């Protein structure tokens, strides 16, 4: 991808008092996303004493550290050195990725803003449903809420902004759209994204041995299903297979 030849990326910025964010692009791309995931992995393996926690967003790796143990300048220098160790844009995706097929009810009470979102994308409701159903989207990040996936990328007509007002509450399993991405909510949540559908996924089970259903790199197909036909089984009949 072109980013690897572009010397402006990655950028290292502070986040709050005790964090750094290393960003691999100003727009979402597969290579910037996998670069961020790989760089976070490298931070975790670096064994820095001041490291408290690390994470990723769509195109950035984040670390929280203790500035009373390691000064900001020193931490920044360590990150700059780590950046130089490889071409992060060519890092592979995580291993053990899975392809999920998730029964989804679109529109109506299950997707109160489906018609509005389709209209903004310049599509009829039938076209909009077909457009999403045919797109194999990837989990680019788990964030915002526990186990909550950001999935992409949808075709360019879905480059629609978030709404100005917050929707007071989208139910758990709700499927929402904005800026060529889809998100699924693990718990009822207020949001600026438009709800277009409903799944029966349980994305976070705090008491389970493996509490988080989806992982970065997993891929998902949202299969349109009539409300009445949705399976009354775990995760609404969603299935997965390993991507080989």
């Amino acid at each position, binding site marked *: 991808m072109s980013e690897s030849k572009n010397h402006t990326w990655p950028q290292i*910025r502070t986040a709050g*008092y005790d*964090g750094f964010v290393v960003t691999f692009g100003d727009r979402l791309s597969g290579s910037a996303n996998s670069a961020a995931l790989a760089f976070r992995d490298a931070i975790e393996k670096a064994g820095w004493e001041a490291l408290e926690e*690390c994470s990723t967003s769509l195109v950035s790796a984040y670390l929280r550290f203790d500035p009373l143990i390691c000064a900001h300048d020193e931490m920044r220098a360590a990150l700059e050195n780590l950046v130089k160790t490889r071409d992060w844009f060519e890092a592979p995706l995580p291993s053990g990725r899975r392809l999920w097929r998730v029964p989804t009810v679109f529109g109506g009470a299950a997707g109160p803003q489906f018609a509005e979102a389709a209209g903004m994308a310049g599509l009829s409701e039938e076209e909009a449903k077909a457009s999403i159903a045919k797109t194999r989207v990837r989990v680019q990040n788990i964030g915002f809420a526990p186990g909550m996936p950001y999935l992409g990328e949808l075709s360019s007509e879905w480059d629609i902004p978030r709404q100005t007002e917050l929707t007071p509450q989208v139910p758990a399993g709700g499927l929402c759209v904005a800026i060529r991405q889809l998100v699924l909510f693990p718990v009822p949540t207020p949001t600026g994204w438009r709800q277009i559908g409903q799944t029966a996924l349980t994305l976070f089970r705090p008491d389970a041995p493996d509490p988080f259903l989806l992982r970065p790199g997993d891929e998902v197909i949202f299969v349109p299903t009539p409300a009445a036909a949705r399976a009354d089984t775990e995760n609404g009949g969603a299935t997965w297979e390993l991507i080989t």
Partner: protein
Amino acid sequence: MSRALIVHRAGPGVTVQDLGRPGYLAYGLSRGGAADRLAMAEGAALLGQDENLAALEMAGMGGEFEATEDLRIALTGAPMPASVDGARVAWNASHLVPKGARLNVGAAEVGSYGYLHIGGGVDAPLVLGGRCAHLAAGIGASLKKGDRLPVGLDCKDQIGMKIAPEERFGGGTVRIVPSLQTELFPEDERARFEMTAFHRDMRGNRMGVRFEPDGEGFVSAAGLSVLSEIIVPGDIQITGDGTPFVLLSECQTTGGYPRIGSVLPADLPKVVQARPGEILQFVFISLDEAVAVQQRDAELKKSLSKRLAPLIRDPSSISDLLSYQLISGVTAGDDHWQSAI
């Protein structure tokens, strides 16, 4: 009977809290934990125990609790009227709640979050490395009548101490540092942000608090299509209508609304303790100044145990003096109020 605290009545926002569960940020789970972390340190100093031992956080309103065995307690954060079997006890102090006694905690007189710490800590189940409720994530729940909270073993006996709390009630000036999206806001918008008085809105919880500006809302150059980026507690997010939300302990881990700056951890207690209508102002400081502030804050927290003083009680306020004397054997020699009798 096992060592426990029985809940006979609880306000709507009473939860078990510790210092949170770090390590799950990459899975979308924010650290969580007590809204006012300074109160956790003050309670730990009063009881001479680890500040990560779980306590009860009481949003606005306490409750009525019964001890199944003699329990040491400490009360910190937003002052609330408190009594043990009808006898008023001091806030920002440690006390004994004898077996079978009822502790009553009323509504906050100033501030928003009060804390009830227990010797040995609340032994709530450990979920993903923490005992704290994380309501936004669906971990744990607000306490209700009939709950029975197991309490850990307590090997200390210090009670009857008080601590002068750090000033953090009633609003005031809050220090913020520039963060990764600060520059999305034009310089004149940032200047106006620092000049603006903000009223703490009615809308607020452990995830974040909304502030209503005197005057126009704030606009970033990026509008509503910013790529979702990492969020840290303290971040000041500007939502679509231009009003700021300060994100707190249970905040989301990523988000797409631009953030104009980030509140210093040392000043977060001032934000969480502000009541609806109270006025805050935000002032930018440099990262170097922020490190100096946090250094002083760390030293302050370490020195809290040296700032304890004996609580001198007025014997006339003790309605059941005899029963106290009957159990004085378990409170050992550092039961300082006895020396005043």
